């Protein structure tokens, strides 16, 4: 029984008047790729930010590698973050420095390694994502897929133990998607990482994940391995997995009945 690397207990978080999470419970197991899925706007990205302590929950605890990350002070938190890598949806490369410097950034800032050693590590990371030849391009010269791969190399630079992917498959052409799927799987298995993938791409995610959580309306409405999800009968899960346009998540935005609307204008 592998231990839980990230443990989310009774998470409650609201933004303004909207309740984002209400008593959500998740366990991310070590060494496995866990997917977090759900309809748009359910707060999947917010969950990653809560795990990385960029946001503070209203109540509940999030434990990462045995530490309650919201109980840490600023310096301890920054140390804990060095063991996490996060791939942002926008890839978030630093636009004023080239690819090489971007990947070298975490090492130059957080370690005292010599430039020679850093150079070797950067080239190896870029090799792992297949972009060693692009080392001297500027982020503005990269395609979306390439930028994402560079961001992945940068997130992996310090060999984190937890990798979080925020919507990695969004807007990618089939080839790039295939590349990313391969990378996520290989890195996780070869390096023994724990990975969290936030996505709403059924096909790719089911391909990659070992365990899946489906979030809706602030809590977990379904969980299990990909095979379990396909067989699951709960209406939430069914609608999501099979892509049904109407169901628990309604097609129509709440409004007065159509007849009433027409009459009042007629």
């Amino acid at each position, binding site marked *: 029984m592998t231990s839980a690397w990230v443990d989310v207990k009774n998470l409650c978080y609201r933004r303004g008047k909207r309740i984002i999470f209400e008593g959500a419970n998740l366990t991310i197991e070590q060494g496995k790729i866990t997917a977090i899925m759900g309809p748009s706007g359910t707060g999947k990205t917010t969950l990653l*930010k809560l795990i*990385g302590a*960029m946001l503070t929950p209203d109540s509940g605890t999030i434990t990462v590698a045995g530490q309650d990350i919201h109980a840490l002070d*600023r310096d301890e938190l*920054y*140390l804990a*973050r*060095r063991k*996490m*890598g*996060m791939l*942002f*949806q*926008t890839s*978030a*490369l*630093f*636009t004023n420095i080239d690819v090489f410097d971007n990947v070298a*950034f*975490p090492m130059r*800032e*957080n370690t005292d390694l010599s430039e020679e050693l850093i150079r070797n590590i950067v080239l190896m990371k870029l090799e792992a994502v297949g972009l060693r030849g692009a080392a001297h391009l500027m982020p503005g010269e990269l395609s979306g897929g390439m930028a994402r791969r560079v*961001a992945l190399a*940068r*997130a992996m630079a*310090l060999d984190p133990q937890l990798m979080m992917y925020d919507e990695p498959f969004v807007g990618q052409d089939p080839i790039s998607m295939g590349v990313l799927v391969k990378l996520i799987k290989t890195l996780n298995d070869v390096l023994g990482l724990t990975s969290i993938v936030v996505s709403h791409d059924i096909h790719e995610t089911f391909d990659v994940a070992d365990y899946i959580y489906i979030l809706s309306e602030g809590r977990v409405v379904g969980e299990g391995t990909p095979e379990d999800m396909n067989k699951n009968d709960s209406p939430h899960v069914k609608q999501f997995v099979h892509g049904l346009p109407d169901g628990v998540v309604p097609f129509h935005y709440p409004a007065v009945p159509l007849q009433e609307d027409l009459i009042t204008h007629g």
Partner: protein
Amino acid sequence: MVDQIVRIGRQGSKFCSGVGQAGIVLFHTTVRKPRLRKLFPLLIEQLYHVGVMSLVIIVVASLFIGMVVGLQGYNTLNKFGATAQLGQLLALSITRELGPVVTALLFAGRAGSALTAEIGLMKATEQLSSMGMMGVDPLWRVIAPRLWAGIITMPILALIFAALAVLGGYLVGVEWLGIDPGSFWSNMQSAVDYKTDVLSGIYKSFAFGIAVTWIAIYQGFACVPTSAGISQATTRTVVFASLATLGLDFILTTMMIGGW
């Protein structure tokens, strides 16, 4: 009616919490273990972008302002036959007021808005968040060098402004309008006191530098991370920084005249 009051109250409390947040950002940016060895090259880079790049507008503006003050001053003093006093009029108005204030306003418009836009864009493209997730505090890596660069640059720009403006006035008054250079300079020198005029101008520009740069980086840091949000933040920087400069100028001038 009550709604209006409620709205004003809410705006007021939003403003207050904004100022409070700005204070916290300033605190976290400045009161940390300064890793000087790492900060220094970043600081030089920012001094270049904030200071050297502002030189063009400062130099041109100062020459023109000096020339205009010289011209207008000559026009009016001529009626009293007191054109020999032009040097004094020029130097006092420049070193005490026009120098620090105009420099601060130009700085807010050029460098301040650039800082806000840059930081806001970094926030909108999640560069600041990703830096944070990599274990590097963006406050000291991105914000702090820019803050210190602004504070150091302002007095230097104000000094350059003042010197060039006096030169501009000299060119108009002596070279063009024919005032005797000897009386121009000697009247100026006897009227301008280093401590109360030049130094107080420097103190003022320090204060303006802190105010303008702080507002610029805070607006960028706290902006709504969309393109509309960035443009709003940039506008707010220029407006708030300019008003803050003028307000501070009044307060400082009162303090200085009152004698400290």
